[in-house]
């Protein structure tokens, strides 16, 4: 018991350390900004980049305690507070109490972070494992002299100068690794294991990272917004994911799996994705507009907005959750939702199906029962036309129910996990593979 207590204590301390490290990045950026101010130069690092003709540089402003609506040139919030007077937002200052996590500080994430910073968001948690490279310079936000810095450090450095009122946490972390996953969830959680953020923005560029965010947000019952830009740089999308209410990311398989495109054609050595600052900026703008609408409760939040730049086409739709989603947690959250909430996401929900389409039936037309369909053979070799066979083994769906004792069928009851691990170890240790290589 004592050892367990000690371990729990250590884990607790580790959690605090990782949270504090993130906060430290923010404080460091703040400190550096102050030092530069004292040096009389607001330019970052490389002194060679300083222009020879020493222009008078505007000093970074001091922190503001509250958002003023006063219309003066020196008020950074006058244009935002004007949203209230225009009747768009009822309480703009509420943004000071909002905390947003941005995962992936690339072409979309960095711009989204800058937008939220300029809007005076309460606090931002930035996640990325990568460093700034010259290859990123065709997109917005990062500057060439920041090459080699971690994206989180470079971003906090810039953002703290733009708006010192924003609390910034930078977490240099790969969320798709085994430990990264746990740490990511820990950083998003408060002391009671509930989410401590109001919104998560996914600005990542791969499927694994999206599935990771999906899993963590399902576990924390946390609403998130997904964004993406196509590899050919000319289209993109944003999507609202509310656990149990809208489709989760596992509800619908991604295009590469669904359409049978070979993934090897998408990722090859020496071939990289195209990107444009325009498309990235548009998607970041759509994403943050959605975030503001959600956080400040104005306008309509469309569950899915697509953008196809070649045709200037913006398809919108709502995505209902998949009742047989492969993620069990998603199914559980769906069943815990009141039905009325689900109905609002379905535009066809108000169609009255109880009344007949035709009142009379002059010609006596009726629908024949689907008896044949019900008796058709189950999936398996028999179901295929002559001359065709499956290239890989397929599960016979009836088999598991009819013949649970079949020899090749998995038996879940008998051996314990420990027994099986021991068996595998024994089988592996008497392996001859090693000797063959000699």
């Amino acid at each position, binding site marked *: 018991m004592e050892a367990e207590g000690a371990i729990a204590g250590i884990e607790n301390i580790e959690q605090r350390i990782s949270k504090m490290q993130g906060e430290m990045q923010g404080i460091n950026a703040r400190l550096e900004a102050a030092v530069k101010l004292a040096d009389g130069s607001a330019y970052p690092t490389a002194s060679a980049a300083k222009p020879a003709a020493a222009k008078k540089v505007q000093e970074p402003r001091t922190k503001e305690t509250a958002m003023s609506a006063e219309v003066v040139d020196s008020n950074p919030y006058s244009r935002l507070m004007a949203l209230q007077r225009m009747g768009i937002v009822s309480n703009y200052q509420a943004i000071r109490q909002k905390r947003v996590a941005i995962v992936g500080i690339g072409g979309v994430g960095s711009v989204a972070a800058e937008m939220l910073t300029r809007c005076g968001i309460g606090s931002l948690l930035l996640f990325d494992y990568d460093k700034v490279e010259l290859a990123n310079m065709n997109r917005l936000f990062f500057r060439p002299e920041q090459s080699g810095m971690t994206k989180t450090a470079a971003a906090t450095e810039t953002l703290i100068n733009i708006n010192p009122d924003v609390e910034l946490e930078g977490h240099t972390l790969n969320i798709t690794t085994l430990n990264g996953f746990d740490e990511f969830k820990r950083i998003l959680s408060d002391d009671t294991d509930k989410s401590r953020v109001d919104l998560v923005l996914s600005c990542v560029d791969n499927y694994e990272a999206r599935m990771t965010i999906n899993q963590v947000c399902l576990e924390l019952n946390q609403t998130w917004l997904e964004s993406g830009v196509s590899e050919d740089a000319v289209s993109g999308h944003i999507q609202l994911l509310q656990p149990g209410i809208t489709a989760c990311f596992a509800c619908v398989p991604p295009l590469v*799996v669904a359409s049978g495109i*070979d993934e090897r054609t998408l990722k090859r050595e020496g071939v990289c994705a195209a990107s444009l600052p325009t498309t990235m900026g548009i998607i970041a703008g759509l994403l943050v507009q959605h975030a503001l609408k959600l956080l400040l409760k104005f306008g309509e939040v469309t569950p899915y907005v697509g953008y196809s730049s070649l045709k200037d086409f913006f398809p919108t739709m709502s995505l209902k959750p998949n009742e047989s989603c492969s993620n069990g947690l998603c199914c559980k959250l769906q069943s815990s939702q009141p039905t009325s909430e689900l109905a609002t996401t379905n535009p066809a929900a108000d169609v009255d199906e109880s009344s007949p389409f035709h009142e009379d039936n002059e010609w006596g037309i009726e629908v024949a029962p689907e008896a044949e369909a019900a008796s058709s053979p189950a999936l398996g070799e028999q179901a295929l036309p002559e001359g065709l066979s499956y290239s890989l083994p397929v599960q016979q769906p009836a088999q*598991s129910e009819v013949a649970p004792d079949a020899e090749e069928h998995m038996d879940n009851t008998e051996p314990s996990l420990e027994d099986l691990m021991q*068996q*595998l170890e024994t089988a592996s240790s008497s392996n001859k*593979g090693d000797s063959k290589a000699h």
Partner: protein
Amino acid sequence: MAESWDSGTKEAVKQIPLLTSIAGPRDKQEWQEKRLKQELQSLIKYIQLNKQTDSDWFTITSNKDGTHWSGKCWGGKICLTVHFKPLWAKNSPHFGIAHALCLGLAPWLAAEIPYMIGEGAIKVKS
């Protein structure tokens, strides 16, 4: 499907028991009680089959939670994303680690090792 296997590999994969549980490590209970057990059972069966045909070519064990797998194969390693992922994605949940080894790593080794020896990149230990 773009990839194709030789008849031996196809025969081998047919003998590995298919899995039924779709649980992952985050579904703590079902993972421990079902999927992980099924993974282990299919791996044990596959190793047994390999031993019977005198082609015992890999060892594999996992940590207690079944979240980290390591082992040795007859030479080389394979990238998870390009070679294994499409196999898993298209055959979820019935294919497990054993099927991926059989359809991914085994044919890759069979093709690459002779080539690497031919190029002088690796040498046979005598």
